């Protein structure tokens, strides 16, 4: 009690209690440390967290939503039974909304959005908006149906009503080959379904490439780790040199090699291994070869750096205790490399999921991965909602796989060196 009081009473030269002063100094130090991290934190926030949040937001939020452009119609549709053609008030509301849209030049946006769900309606909406400009007095129902019979279809109105809020599940469902009909969610027809197959393909290619890099990389890493430093460094250059070369350059190099009239095919034909050029380019084979080549260092380097930390004495001890060479390797050496394998494989697998340029250049149409379809949605379809939904699903599945991986192998066991 007395001691505590004594410390409480100790003051520094400027009259502040020592405890308080210490706290302030500590706080200033923490603040300084934090401010050093701040630029990085800010960078991560701006370049990583915000874009991902924006993507997730875009996948469910529809800025072109029909609700914003057809507010009165959506309100009037609230009491509609969903089966027959709606009554006069709904049509009056539609006419008012379309007249407004025509004034603001937003009719094309309404048409574009509805066209996602009802093909061919885009031009009908635009034409109707143009024609209703001249309608001042009712009854509107017959007049609008006379402009285009599409307005008599309950399906049209159901599509409008489904979009009564700016939030939509349309894009996420579309990215899973699903569709919201008037009677619940169902799969779209087989000749249009595409994305589930593309997701499976993306993961399958990633898995294959990971397996190949491990198969090829592990022995090389072992060699590098066990050679004397001089030779190991030279070999390391061979691993790193391609690693430092641009991804595009390496892919283009594979393109040249794999062509029907490329080096490999010419060589095989010259040596009479084959008469016809083998189908190397624009195929799954070419994609996996090129991706394996590019990903090899990513798998190899973590394994190598883990192997470097394993004392050679362990295997020697096992051998001296009577273990055979394979037994000693498998039971003593290999288990210690698992953290490196885990890290390298995870790195390669996740990087593979995002491959775009390599499959685009050396793969055929059946080898394209999710990112290629994201690019199509953004660049040619101008459908950012679908692109975001594809990205969001890829992110979600990757995270789910990561959790599974963590359960099986354990992320805390992972070591990059």
């Amino acid at each position: 009690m007395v001691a505590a009081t004594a410390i409480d009473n100790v003051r520094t030269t400027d009259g502040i209690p020592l405890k308080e002063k210490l706290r302030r100094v500590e706080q200033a130090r923490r603040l300084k440390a934090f401010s050093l991290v701040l630029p990085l934190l800010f960078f991560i926030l701006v370049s990583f967290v915000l874009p991902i949040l924006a993507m997730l937001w875009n996948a469910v939020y529809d800025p072109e939503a029909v609700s914003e452009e057809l507010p009165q119609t959506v309100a009037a549709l609230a009491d509609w039974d969903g089966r027959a053609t709606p009554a006069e008030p709904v049509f009056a509301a539609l006419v008012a909304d379309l007249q407004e849209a025509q004034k603001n030049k937003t009719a094309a946006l309404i048409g574009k959005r509805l066209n996602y769900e009802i093909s061919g309606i885009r031009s009908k909406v635009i034409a109707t908006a143009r024609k209703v400009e001249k309608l001042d007095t009712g009854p509107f129902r017959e007049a609008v149906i006379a402009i285009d019979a599409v307005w008599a279809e309950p399906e049209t109105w159901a599509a409008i009503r489904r979009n009564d809020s700016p939030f939509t599940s349309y894009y996420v469902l579309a990215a899973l080959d699903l569709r919201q009909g008037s009677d619940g969610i169902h799969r779209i027809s087989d000749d249009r379904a595409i994305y589930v197959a593309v997701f499976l393909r993306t993961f399958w290619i990633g898995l294959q490439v990971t397996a190949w890099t491990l198969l090829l990389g592990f022995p090389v890493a072992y060699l590098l780790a066990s050679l004397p430093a001089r030779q190991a460094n030279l070999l390391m250059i061979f691993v790193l040199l391609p690693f430092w070369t641009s991804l595009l350059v390496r892919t283009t190099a594979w393109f040249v090699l794999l062509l029907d009239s490329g080096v490999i095919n010419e060589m095989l034909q010259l040596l009479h291994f084959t008469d016809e050029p083998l189908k190397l380019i624009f195929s799954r084979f070419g994609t996996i070869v090129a991706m394996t080549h590019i990903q090899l260092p990513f798998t190899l380097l973590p394994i190598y750096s883990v192997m470097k930390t394993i004392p050679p004495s362990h295997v020697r001890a096992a051998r001296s205790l009577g273990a055979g060479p394979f037994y000693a390797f498998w039971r003593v050496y290999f288990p210690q490399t698992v953290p490196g394998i885990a890290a390298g494989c995870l790195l390669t697998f996740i990087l593979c999921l995002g491959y775009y340029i390599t499959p685009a250049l050396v793969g055929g149409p059946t080898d394209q991965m999710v990112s290629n379809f994201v690019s199509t949605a953004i660049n040619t379809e101008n459908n950012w909602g679908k692109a975001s939904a594809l990205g969001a699903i890829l992110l979600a599945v990757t995270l789910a796989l990561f959790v599974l991986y963590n359960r099986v192998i354990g992320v805390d066991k992972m070591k990059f060196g």
Partner: protein
Amino acid sequence: MNNKTVSIVAIVVAIVAIIYGVMQHQQVASLQQQVETLKADAAKAKEEAAKQAAAGPQVAALPGVNLTVVSWGGAYQDSQREAFMKPFAKASGAKITEEEYNGEIAKIRAMVESNNVTWDVIDIDTQTALAACAEGILETIDWGKLGLDRSKFIGGELQACAVPNIVYATVIAYDTTKLNPGPTSIKDLFDLQKFPGKRGLQKNPFINLEWALIADGVAIADVYKVLGTPEGVDRAFAKLDTIKKEVVWWEAGAQPPQLLADGQVAITSAWNGRIYNAVKKDNKPFKIVWDAQGFDWDWWSIPKGGPRVDAAYAFITYSSQPGPMAEQTKYISYGPANRDAIPNVDPAVLPDLPTAPQNMTTALIVDPQFWADKGEELRERFNAWLAK
């Protein structure tokens, strides 16, 4: 072509010319007619054009302006550089920065939406221009401000936000040293027995579906009617299925001549100017088959809200004059959209232009409205079909 066809064509030309006289102040609906009138008009235009060319195109002085012009790269952009960019920069004092793209509408949209328009003039295709215009991301063209006579342009009245620039054709081509005799019709593109080997096609349903139907026996005039029905679409995909395994898909216009040169494909679809260029500049033994070639436009457009709209107008005005347009045909065989340019074109190049009379008889005029309406649906199905 036998005598009968020639006389029929002659009569058609005459009739169309008379109709044009009557309808001079009305818009001519059919594009085919327009191109026919182009020929009838040529003599009259020749005098006027010669006068204009002698005077040289007018250019506004734009010292210190940095104008960014975006086009499709390769031989096409090279021709534009020689005919438009360089002389315009020299005459106006503006500095021109060039960029390339593959018609990605999203890039334009992103610029306009973020209010950060850095592209001042874009060379754009028909469908993208229609879609972008409807979505309000292109400036509406004020022809008065351009100082150009809209009626002089082939297809000038088709778009509100774009000025016709060239007429091009999507054709099929082959290497004469590898296929001899070569294919002669679009049917041969689908005939793997007669012409074994890989096919190069654009990774887009556009033109490919039309060709599939024509090869399957649909008359050129009925293509869009058939393609408008679900059965027609099924039929087109079924026909494409027969060559699917042999197709190499290209995306950039510079790819098909390269694929041909590498021997990677036996027959490829391509934009006619790219093949012409490979033949003239690189002495490649390629030959174009003028059958059911897709007749289409490229356009100049201005992204909405850019900071240099006036300079962009000046550039488009310059590039649409008969003189520079004729100059462009020295480098690439695309038809100038300005009818007045035709008399200035080297007669040796004329037969290679998509607008040449003998090429027009076989042309498939692409229907932009059809693609504006059905494009999304067909592209979706095409992508799903491709990925299987």
